């Protein structure tokens, strides 16, 4: 308690004020969206103030009921499963590749690494058609496989590269300690590198969660059956450029869909921020 007071006295209050002002700019769209989700459809764009003239829960009711008896809850479950599968895939495959690139010696290492970076430089709009043809041949259209499978083969170079950078920041002397204890490369991976690269793994988890949750283009192309819809497909269902948009329902379900994202973020960033470095370095 005293330390807080002290910190305020130490002329930190301008910092605080700045942070709060900044936070408001950051969070305004969230407030706006939540307020819109309680307004009737016709009011949303006429009254842009944060306080609804007419308060309604109808948007939540209408949005949640989904379509043809498939509720939004179903979409949430689908998305959770999809996201879980993607996270596991990314963590396992990307960390393996990253470990190889950062710590192991083998022929053509630099070539493969360069190639990995290059695969990220091609806009996906031109590979999506051949990819679709491929998955169609494999009879995987209308399943989650086209969305999940690449994650088990480290297709997201972003995370491989991220982990490479983290692993390279781990001092080599620690490796030596393991080696002196008689550990081989597998021990090194499982017992030293992985725990020490935990911030990178947590970051991967957070980003995979958020990006998979928000992605729509691939989901839209591969998933057309309502029962397999994800949250982002469900949200797009409310909008149609040629017709009437269910803005209220869209904002209501968007608000709900932000809750898991927010929870995941708050939950994991604790591990990201607090105590990991000190805890594991001593372990």
């Amino acid at each position, binding site marked *: 308690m005293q330390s807080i007071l002290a*910190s305020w006295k130490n002329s930190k209050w301008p910092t605080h004020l700045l942070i709060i002002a*900044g936070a408001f700019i950051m969070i305004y769209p969230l407030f706006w969206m939540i307020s819109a989700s309680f307004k009737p459809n016709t009011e949303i764009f006429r009254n842009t103030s944060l306080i609804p003239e007419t308060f309604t829960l109808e948007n939540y009711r209408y949005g949640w009921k989904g379509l043809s008896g498939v509720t939004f809850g179903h979409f949430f479950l689908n998305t959770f499963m999809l996201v879980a599968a993607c996270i596991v895939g990314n963590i396992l495959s990307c960390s*393996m590749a990253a470990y190889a690139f950062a710590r192991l010696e083998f022929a053509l290492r630099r070539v493969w690494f360069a190639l990995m970076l290059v*695969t990220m*430089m091609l806009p996906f709009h031109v590979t999506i058609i051949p990819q679709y043809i*491929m998955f169609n041949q494999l009879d995987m259209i209308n399943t989650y496989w086209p969305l999940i499978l690449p994650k088990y083969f480290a*297709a997201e170079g972003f995370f491989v590269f*991220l982990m490479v950078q983290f692993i390279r920041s781990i001092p080599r002397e620690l490796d030596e300690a393991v080696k002196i204890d008689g550990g081989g490369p597998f021990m090194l991976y499982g017992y030293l590198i992985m725990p020490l690269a935990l911030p990178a793994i947590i*970051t991967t988890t957070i980003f995979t969660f958020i990006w998979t949750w928000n992605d729509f283009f691939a989901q839209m192309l591969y998933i057309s059956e309502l029962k397999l819809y994800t949250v982002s497909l469900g949200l797009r269902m409310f909008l149609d450029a040629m017709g009437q948009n269910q803005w209220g329902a869209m904002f209501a379900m968007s608000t709900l869909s932000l809750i898991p994202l927010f929870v995941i973020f708050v939950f994991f960033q604790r591990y990201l*921020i607090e105590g990991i470095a000190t805890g594991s370095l001593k372990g």
Partner: protein
Amino acid sequence: MNPKLINVLKRNAVGYLFLSPWLLGLIGLSALPILASLYFSFTRYDMLTAPDWIGLDNYREMLLNDQKWRNSLKVTLIYVLLGVPLQLVFALSIALMLNRGIRGLRIYRAIYYVPSLFGGSVAVALLWRQLFGGEGLVNLLLRQIGLPGHNWIASPDTALYTLIVLKIWQFGAPMVIFLAALKQVPTELYEASRIDGAGRWKQFWRITLPLITPIVFFNVVMQTIQAFQAFTPAYIVSRGTGGPLDSTLFYTLYLYQKGFTHFQMGYAASMAWVLLIVIAFVTAMLFLSARKWVYYQE
């Protein structure tokens, strides 16, 4: 057999074992679509009939005649050159600020990530109009102090810059990565420097920054690669048209229009490969420069 050779083989075997998921994925999943797109780039391909080989025609048309292509490259370069450095400086400053041991900052960290959760959603598009539109907040403030207003998001000379502001505003992803990196800086080093009597500023330049250069490098490379492929931001001001007057016609947006709206997938593919070369060149430059300023603990 030579024990040295055995050792080399063993090392290679282990290396490739760990690399195998990625390598199998490259061969089985990625290689085919990538090579197919390379092939398409030499064809006229409308997606509905078989590709028709036309050699370098697409490339020639693009490089010599396509005014829109030139413009989209320019738009994208401005976006990359301004957006990436500004966003990263901002992300790092906020990360440093949020990395201090002040109470309540945990909530701020989450709040500061909110804009990035939204991506290119409708809510952000609306916010941007309320801020930078003809009747937006910025104009309201300008008029208060007697300056003329300007339709920031819908004028060809300013629309792109509102998107650069948007990019800076959505600094969450690099910020989180910076935070993770800052946590890897051993606290002992700070304690040692405090004994030496180094101030905060000096600490940052002498200890923090050098130790996180691998992550700074990562963020620079990845944000550059991603910014070159920026697509969704165009939906914020122009609903995907790239207007007004092509001032927000990002490279990949034009590529998408060519492919999916105009049914010229072959041309789109050739655009993609030119972009790949541009990005590869820039990335290679970054890697070369990294030798001078990135420090690994090796």
